[in-house]
């Protein structure tokens, strides 16, 4: 991942969101976005089943499938929600054995169905996960015992990009990076102002890859406008989608391309939130025609 960022900037990727029980579909989607110009795919943890099952294990399995069957460089999302260090280590080493060495770490969030899943529990948080991965890379396991062969994980961390960060937010971001993250993947960015505070905290220490989401309707935009932190998704974008009426999906893609053009120069790569839009991949690739950041 790090070598790709340095040598092949600007990086372009897309999230593969798992469909129900369909690995082949995911591998085909990965191949389609690769053919459209993407450098890699990131397998997401939240599929339609939205259960504990559609989490770390599935993301690792999908990444191994996209890598093995479609030959597409793959990054797996790993979350710590409801997992012990013992299980995480077994899954990570199992994924490593299958070639899944690029990871994006996060805490994850529990499904809202508390009756079924109970209260959300975190035995370890993302900082501890990054530290675990760092130790595995040094050849030391969760008990502090030496591994015969060190791992070679590329460690990414998922961080929210919002227009205003409190002092506590900034400290938390620094903890994640200082724990040993090699790169940062942001939450969806709709306007450059939402990215600036995060870039300020990162201060060039590690590459930042921004996620871009193509809004599909005015209703979705309105929901996100209220759900996300203030200022993440401005009203003017909501209005553009409303005016587009039946053409809202196309307008959403156009907004995504514009957002990419606006933020590409400040990041080392772009991740599209979905892999089911190869045409958008091609359009974004065109915007990223020259290196976003000078590697030197």
């Amino acid at each position, binding site marked *: 991942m790090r070598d790709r960022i340095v040598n092949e900037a600007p990086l372009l990727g897309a999230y593969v969101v*798992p469909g129900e029980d369909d690995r082949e579909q995911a591998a085909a989607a990965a191949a389609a976005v690769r053919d459209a110009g993407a450098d890699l795919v990131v397998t997401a943890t939240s599929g339609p089943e939205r259960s504990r099952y559609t989490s770390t*294990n599935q993301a690792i399995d999908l990444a*191994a499938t996209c890598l093995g069957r479609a030959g597409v460089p793959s990054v797996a999302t790993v979350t710590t929600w409801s997992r012990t260090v*013992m299980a995480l280590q*077994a*899954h990570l080493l199992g994924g490593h*054995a299958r070639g899944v060495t690029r990871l994006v770490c996060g805490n994850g969030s529990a499904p809202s169905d508390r009756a079924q899943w109970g209260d959300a529990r975190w035995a370890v948080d993302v900082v501890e996960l990054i530290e675990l991965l760092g130790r595995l890379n040094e050849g030391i396991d969760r008990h502090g015992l030496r591994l*015969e062969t060190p791992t070679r994980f590329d460690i990414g961390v998922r961080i929210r990009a919002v227009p205003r960060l409190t002092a506590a937010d900034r400290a938390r971001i620094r903890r994640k990076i200082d724990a040993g993250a090699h790169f940062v993947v942001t939450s969806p960015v709709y306007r450059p102002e939402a990215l600036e505070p995060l870039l300020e905290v990162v201060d060039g220490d590690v590459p930042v890859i921004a996620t871009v989401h193509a809004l599909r309707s005015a209703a979705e935009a309105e929901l996100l406008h209220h759900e996300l932190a203030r200022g993440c998704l401005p009203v003017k974008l909501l209005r553009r989608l409303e005016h587009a009426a039946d053409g809202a999906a196309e307008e959403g893609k156009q907004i995504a391309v514009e957002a990419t053009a606006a933020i590409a120069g400040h990041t080392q790569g772009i991740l599209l939130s979905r892999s089911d839009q190869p045409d958008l991949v091609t359009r974004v690739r065109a915007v990223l025609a020259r290196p976003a950041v000078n590697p030197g």
Partner: protein
Amino acid sequence: MTFPDGSAMDLHQVVALCSELSSVATADGDLGQVVALVAGRAGVWAAVVDDALTVLALSGGPDRGEADLLGEALETDKEAVSQLISAAARMRRALSLPAFGAAAVSLVVAPILVGDDSVAYLLTAGHDADETGEDTRIMVTEHAAMVSAVILGRRRVVAIAAGRARRELFDGLVLVGDRTEADIDGWARHLGIEPGHRQRVLLTAVESPTGAAVPAVTELVEHLIATRCPIATVVNRGTEVVALVPGDDDAGLAGMLTGLARLCHRTVTERFPGVRVIAGLSDPHTGAVRISTSYGQARRAVDIGRTFPGLPEVTVFADLGVHRLLAQVREVAELGRFTRHVLGALLDYDRANGTGYCETLSVYFRENGSPQRAGALLHAHPNTVTYRVRRAEEIAGLDLGYYPDRLAVQLALEIRNGLGGDGCATAS
């Protein structure tokens, strides 16, 4: 870890299972008991396999009548399971192979560690639709692997002692002369060999780049032969593994042992790059008194295979032909010099021009001078073969119609092909 009815193991059940597993080790139980306990108590499929995915112990499923999901996974997803096992051996830790979708099977692999070696692997498979029991399964699998290590470690101590005794008996049988036939029959019986049987010897020698013995490789070869050919008497002699195999079907036994030797060669090459395996197979002989003859032939076949790396990976004594004589030449370089003396000009021409005149001549002679059959093998027209042979004569300055020239060329080609690669590359 989820039972068929969907419930997960509670803490008391986990403690009880771990305690029962420990008692299997203290009560001198076997691997079958371990996997049966894990499967029965934890609601999963369980097995112990070796590096080659040979199943050493396999449980039934958690639910009677349900398909053998672990067996299917071993069969259909062999590559992924092999990757996992290989990584588990390297990491010496439990790993998991996650499943996709609620109906799929997820695997946990824990290496069974005896000393410095991963001698086998304990696998569990389960649906774990929501993975609520994954921690429990990983823990139980690790514990069962540890118990299996105690069992296998104990067996290994016994096996080492038995192996040493077997090796000494075998050495006495094949290396010590001046014994009566009755003595030899008695020694053979001690080794479990019926004295009147017809038998062949397969000798598999192991060579490391440093020249040092590689116990892990000879043990792997010993294991591969012993598990696939239970009628064989197998003796690990440190740098070589000797298998004495009875059988009256000469051709059938030769075919089976050649296949077995190729499997050993392939498996070792994949797992231990740089380590060379040379196998030699004796002629068939009848009676215990001829065992030393069989061993001697297999030994010579290996020595010849070592001298001529271009020969097939399994050297069959009966097929050696002229190489038996060539191998008597003490200085291998002299063979190279002879070849260059005869074919030097042609070898240089082939190398400089990318032509394959030596290859054409080899195939032409092996096909008894038939341009038609040689052409079929070389995918060339018979006239082309005839032209190439004539051209080769011109370049080499030889006349293949003249007996001494033809014999010299045939010998030189056998040496070149046997030495392989650059054995005759340069004049020296």
